[in-house]
């Protein structure tokens, strides 16, 4: 199914590649250490995904990009990005490799990095069309046994997305449509397909992590309802609500303290940015 691109598609790809090459050739390199300006100006080195809106992309259009810019300005630092797809090995290949110093968003109890104070708390949400008036708030709603439900799945590694576990536990299986967490990386917005599916009516309802749901819901032509799921923690221990922090290398307490001060000082500005991107908070 992936090998049947037609001629037109292929030429488009060529054009797209040229544009992308032109557009990005001026961006910062992976090793800002070699930059002479470092001697005169501080550099805030951020590890980020180059194609993962609403969080970040290499055109710096994500809310994490905006918050990074804000912090860099305050620290009188130049912003330098190390781009790497945020997948398994992301922390190892970027932050721990020493190429960059901060990841703008990690779960606050994530052990592979040293977290700052959390700067927002969001939840997985039920996404449905407003005109359907479903009003579903809980995984225990009996209608979920019948409705077609979109859920993001993870391939293996002994884990799956929290809603996939919650639904399976309740025997809700045959009416579930699986989407990958990664999406199609060729797309400018790999994360939007599951929200699009709700708007188009491919599924009746989807369960999506808040920031992704909020951002892509705003871009639909039809109104979508976003409702935080309940329970917030499914037994025995399956949380749907996560605090999100910035993450620095373990041991880098100096940078953490600076970022903690920033998060406190810029609380209102950060809230404004999160609002702008439609990030639901709980």
């Amino acid at each position, binding site marked *: 199914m992936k090998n049947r691109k037609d001629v037109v598609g292929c030429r488009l790809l060529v054009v797209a590649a040229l544009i992308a090459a*032109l557009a990005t050739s001026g961006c910062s390199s992976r090793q800002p250490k070699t930059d002479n300006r470092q001697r005169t100006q501080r550099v805030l080195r951020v590890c980020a995904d180059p194609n993962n809106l609403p969080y970040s992309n290499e055109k710096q259009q994500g809310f994490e990009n905006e918050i990074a810019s804000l912090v860099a300005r305050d620290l009188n630092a130049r912003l330098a990005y190390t781009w790497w797809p945020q*997948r398994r090995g992301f922390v190892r290949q970027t932050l721990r490799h020493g190429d960059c110093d901060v990841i703008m968003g990690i779960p606050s109890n994530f052990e592979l990095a040293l977290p700052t104070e959390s700067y927002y708390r969001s939840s997985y949400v039920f996404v449905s069309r407003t005109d359907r008036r479903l009003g579903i708030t809980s995984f225990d709603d009996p209608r979920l046994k019948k409705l077609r439900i979109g859920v993001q799945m*993870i391939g293996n*590694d002994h884990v799956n997305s929290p809603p996939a*576990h919650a639904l399976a536990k309740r025997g809700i299986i045959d009416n579930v449509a*699986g989407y990958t967490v990664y999406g199609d990386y060729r797309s400018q917005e790999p994360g939007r397909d599951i929200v699009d599916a709700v708007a188009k009516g491919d599924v009746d309802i989807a369960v999506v992590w808040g920031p992704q749901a909020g951002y892509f819901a705003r871009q639909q032509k039809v109104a979508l309802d976003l409702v935080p799921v309940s329970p917030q923690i499914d037994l025995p221990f399956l949380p749907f609500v*996560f605090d999100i922090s910035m993450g620095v290398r373990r041991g880098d307490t100096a940078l953490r303290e600076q970022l903690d001060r920033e998060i406190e000082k810029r609380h209102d500005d950060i809230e404004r940015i999160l609002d702008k991107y439609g990030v639901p908070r709980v």
Partner: protein
Amino acid sequence: MLGATAQVQSRKQSLGAQAILVLIALCAGCNQKTPDNKTFPFLQRYSSAPSEKTDLVKLEGEDGQWIMPAKNYASTRFSGLNQINTGNVKNLKVAWTFSTGSDRGEEAAPIVVNNTMYIVTPFPNTLYALDLTQPGAPAKWSYKPKDLNPSAKGVACCDWVNRGCVYANGKIFFNTLDGKTAAVNAQTGDEVWVAQVTDINRGESITMAPLVVKNKVLVGDSGGEFGVRGSLTALDTETGKQVWKAYNTGPDKDCLIGPNFHPFYDSDKGQDLGVKSWPPDLWKIGGGTVWGWISYDPALDLIYYGTANPGPWNPEQRPGDNKWTCGMFARKPDSGEAVWFYQWSPHDLYDHDGINELVLLDLPINGQTRKVLVRPERNGYVYVLDRTTGQVLSANPFAFITTSTGVDLKTGRLKPVQEKAPGFGRVTRMICPPAPGAKDWEPSAYSPITKLLYIPHANLCEDEEGVQANYIAGTPYVGANVKMYAGPGGNRGVFDAWDPVAGKKIWSIKENFPVWSGTVATAGNVVFYGTMDGWFKAIDARSGQLLWQFKCGSGIIGQPVTFLGPDGKQYVSILSGVGGWPGAIVPGQLDPRDGTAALGFVNAMGDLPKATTKGGMLYTFALP
């Protein structure tokens, strides 16, 4: 992601050159779908390919050469050479070495054709040709794949490995981590064609070594953890054009299952089981990739290959047998049509990818010579199957197993132990074998002289207890906390000699680390393998006695080969360079305190960084 590709390249090239490179590479990809070369005039320079048809069936029988990683279509990895034997192997000395310039895991087999050795490195997958006619075997040329997508490194699950290249029709064929197959002129190193086979943007990478059968290059995908849909693709050796593609999940027509499909067991019979054995539509992200080995029987004209684990993780989400994952297909190479299928682990619970090697042998079973295939499987059993029908003739445990109690020979089904089924938030201890299995991809060898199969493998168990926070692509979640550790006895590795007829172990060598290298057996009654702390060993094929060993610079997870040099002398070669899934702790600089890193493997490998350091180096040995 193209933007990111271009950006990384921009460090090395001027903008104009870079844009042209992107264009050329993309057009090479286009060419396979749009044969109209006039559209892209620069393609002309790729068209100087030698195209004589090699008789691979004849060539694989020549013991002087080693043209494919498995040595031959039957995948015996047996060489008829006997200059080096049990009497003189103790005199083996290094003849020459070659640095690959890579610090990632070296899983490839070197191949030898026409007095030239070819090796392919981990990503960025450089192909080197070494001139065996010159003292010290200097490099004749190297071929560096262009326009590699660096995001492949983020996609690959288990280090950036490549398991080798293959020779046919005057060309060397190999796969790149970012989902392409390359054909390179074996003499000149010129690129003949490059085909985009899988889509890295959807998480499909390639790590396997291709196999060439009847002028078709057979290529399978990796990436089960991304929810990809597994498949095997056949490309034309001369043009790189797709001849057929067979999926391992979904409707029969996608799986090339038709009227000639006759599986042995009832549970594999029925229409569209690749759809019906899943919840609706889940087969679309159902895994079943093909990242291991393919064998071929020219007399039956059947190819054989295994399929990897089903996705998504969380077996509760995918009730059913999840066809056609964790099993194996027999197919016709010309059309790809399926002839039979057998499933090692229906509804896999443990990530037991069924992709290991399939050794084709003719063995006396109950007084009759049977055409069989022998398979040391991840779930801990050595299977002997009738390769004409797919019937299981025997399945005997070669490792410590708690997850199943055997294989029912009437139904062919594995008998799982319910208490060992992992589940979210549940504590499950002593899961043996764990995710990498009793034996992973590292291939065994069979000697027709001793009639023994030599199996390099692991002795590991795992616990799943509690949960830990994680995130991918901005999405937070909690996952199972998996920790692996040594199985009974405390040794993490084993090298076994196994009698496939009697179904029992003849001798066994305990190794401290999991044995992650392949092996080769020779007519000199010597078998070779390597250890993750860097010892390359020669063993007496009959007794299991250690005859010789040499400490290489880095841990060994490669595949040894043996061949005749232009001087008529027998040589043995191995790539050293630790890495892979168990060894990722060394090149990946994982934190030994973080036991759950590398999917829990680091817990079992915390002492490896003290035992070896990274760095790829080829070693070639000979008698003085």
